[in-house]
């Protein structure tokens, strides 16, 4: 598989009145051609900032790129001028945002917004662009595409607006599609439609997707690889199977434990992660999750853990994976037992 995107040691800060926020701290990952990579994490974990940096959407100031590199198809796109960025990235990366109402232009008919990109990047005439735009509307499953071409965003429903956003992002046949919480604002039945559509298009066009979400269900159903972010860092990454079946970071355990089991017959008590996310003005010296971690050891507070390689492409940033630490599986199993016991008591 060929490498499409390579992010290495990315660090992004924001200047605010309260000081500098370390939003992204040393993030490295890659995306291959045609694969779906999910990034999960809570608000403030740095997931949106990471992808916005890839898109060159971070306003500077207040944003400051502290270091790292982002290579798209082998070419550096971090820190280059806007004009150069456009040349390298051009129409090859598309993005879908969470809220389709605020990311579409309310004073412009939807069709024109799709055609705009096509005219700029593919050098089509206005007429050809209109045909292409209608074709895209049909592709994303909007009925009466010819009629819808001339309508404004407010005449579309939430789900249709998100479809229109997808049509804009896909109109130039991008190699990489970045979807930042594309279904969070939608109802479940509409979410199902949009996810099916994205999967469908991904299969047809072999576009790679970076999917940002906080819904682990969405991750399990769509992604091949997962990156878990916390406090501006990647705390664990691996294939979906590795991550759901052999998670090695207590934060990942916490995430998996705090979602209710829809299929199980009996009611298990939810095990929440206590406390709240770290303050990124002055992040802790050691592991960012240590203050909320049930298994925190002395070293966790003192020193930042490295990336422990658990298996092929499975990394976990947690001291529990050190050979000197207590056995992780045992700790996890014991906790599960306790949880089950606590649940049955109830």
């Amino acid at each position: 598989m060929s490498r499409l995107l390579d992010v290495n040691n990315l660090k992004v800060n924001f200047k605010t009145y309260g000081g500098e926020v370390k939003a992204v701290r040393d993030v490295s990952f890659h995306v291959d051609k045609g694969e779906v990579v999910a990034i999960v994490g809570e608000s403030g974990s740095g997931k949106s900032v990471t992808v916005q940096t890839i898109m060159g959407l971070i306003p500077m100031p207040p944003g400051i790129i502290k270091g790292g590199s982002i290579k798209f198809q082998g070419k550096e796109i971090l820190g280059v001028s806007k004009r150069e960025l456009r040349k390298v990235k051009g129409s090859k990366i598309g993005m879908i945002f969470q809220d389709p109402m605020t990311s579409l232009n309310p004073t412009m008919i939807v069709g024109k917004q799709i055609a705009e990109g096509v005219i700029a990047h593919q050098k089509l005439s206005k007429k050809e662009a209109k045909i292409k735009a209608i074709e895209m509307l049909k592709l994303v499953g909007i009925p009466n595409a010819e009629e819808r071409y001339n309508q404004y965003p407010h005449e579309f429903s939430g789900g249709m607006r998100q479809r229109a956003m997808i049509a804009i992002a896909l109109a130039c046949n991008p190699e990489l599609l970045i979807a930042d919480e594309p279904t969070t604002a939608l109802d479940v039945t509409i979410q199902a439609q949009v996810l099916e559509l994205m999967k469908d298009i991904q299969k047809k066009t072999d576009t790679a997707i970076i999917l940002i979400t906080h819904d682990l269900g969405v991750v399990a159903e769509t992604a091949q690889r997962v990156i878990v972010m916390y406090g501006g860092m990647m705390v664990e990454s691996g294939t979906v199977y590795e991550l759901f079946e052999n998670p090695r970071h207590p934060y990942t355990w916490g995430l998996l434990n705090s979602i209710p089991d829809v299929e199980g017959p009996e009611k298990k008590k939810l095990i929440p992660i206590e406390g709240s996310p770290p303050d990124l003005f002055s992040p802790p010296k050691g592991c960012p999750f240590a203050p909320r971690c049930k298994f925190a050891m002395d070293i966790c507070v003192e020193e930042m853990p490295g990336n422990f390689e658990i298996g092929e492409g499975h990394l976990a940033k947690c001291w529990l994976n050190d050979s000197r630490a207590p056995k992780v599986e045992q700790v996890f199993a014991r906790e599960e037992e306790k949880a089950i016991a606590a649940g049955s008591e109830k």
Partner: protein
Amino acid sequence: MVERIEETGKAHTTENLVEIHSLKKYFNIKKDVTVKSVDDISISIRKGETFGLVGESGSGKSTLGKTVVGLQAPTSGEIIYNGQNVLQLDKETQRNVNKEMQIIFQDPHASLNPRMRVGDIIAEGIDAYKLFKGKDRTNRIYELLAQVGLRPEHAKRFPHEFSGGQRQRIGIARALAVEPKFIVADEPISALDVSIQAQVINLMEELKESEGLTYLFIAHDLGMVKHISDRIGVMYLGKMMELSNSDDMFRNPLHPYTQALLSAIPKANPRAVKRERIVLQGDPPSPTAPPSGCRFRTRCPHAMEICALQEPQWKEVEDEHWVACHLY
């Protein structure tokens, strides 16, 4: 009380805390345009249970919740609380009934006054009903803060100093301040992060036990609704589509809409057997012009001729399992 056809059927040994009979709430948004947000709904909420109410945006679930606690006057219908017809009570008794019914809102950022200190926000109900004064009032605030897992020093702070999860705890403390019996929780966790959602849900479950509360839990996250609810009602465009206990609903959903809703939940298991997902076509129709007959028929995979002509009856198909659909 007058004999009437109860949607929950025969007399139950369990006592109903809240009964809603043929409740309607219409909004006139323009001349000649009426939105029937809640259209002829009858449900009973039993003492001590958590009644989950699910539906998509625009289904009328929040309107129903707000109307039940008296934040809005219904267009018609009856709300019976503890055997009393709330709408026909004199002002004084109504005020006391309202005290026992509280609501927790969805957005903890918008529902707390940013210019009030947390202590005063929590004490709003205490002050309105003149329950405590001076030192007792302060102590009561501390007690409430402790109940929801916050510290006494938080009383002096302002809402912006708190995270989303903590703000939702403040909202819960405010609701608890007047010792309610019945709480409507209107999407209390939708705005929170996953790890924080579980904290709030666990807190709500603990409080239900310790305070003997009854919940009407409104949400669109079916997983959480199943987790917390004893019975679940499914709404679509102002109508109740299905009602049963939560296990039955998930094991044996009868209404095609419920089936589609359940199959739309993404499962957090990458090896889950690839089910035939029922992907509904189209969007919910505009609530200003709902379809004739069954309101779901325009998106229903099983729609028949009769569905357009006649509104399906609300009937008990299995024991305590109600549905409004021509298939049954």
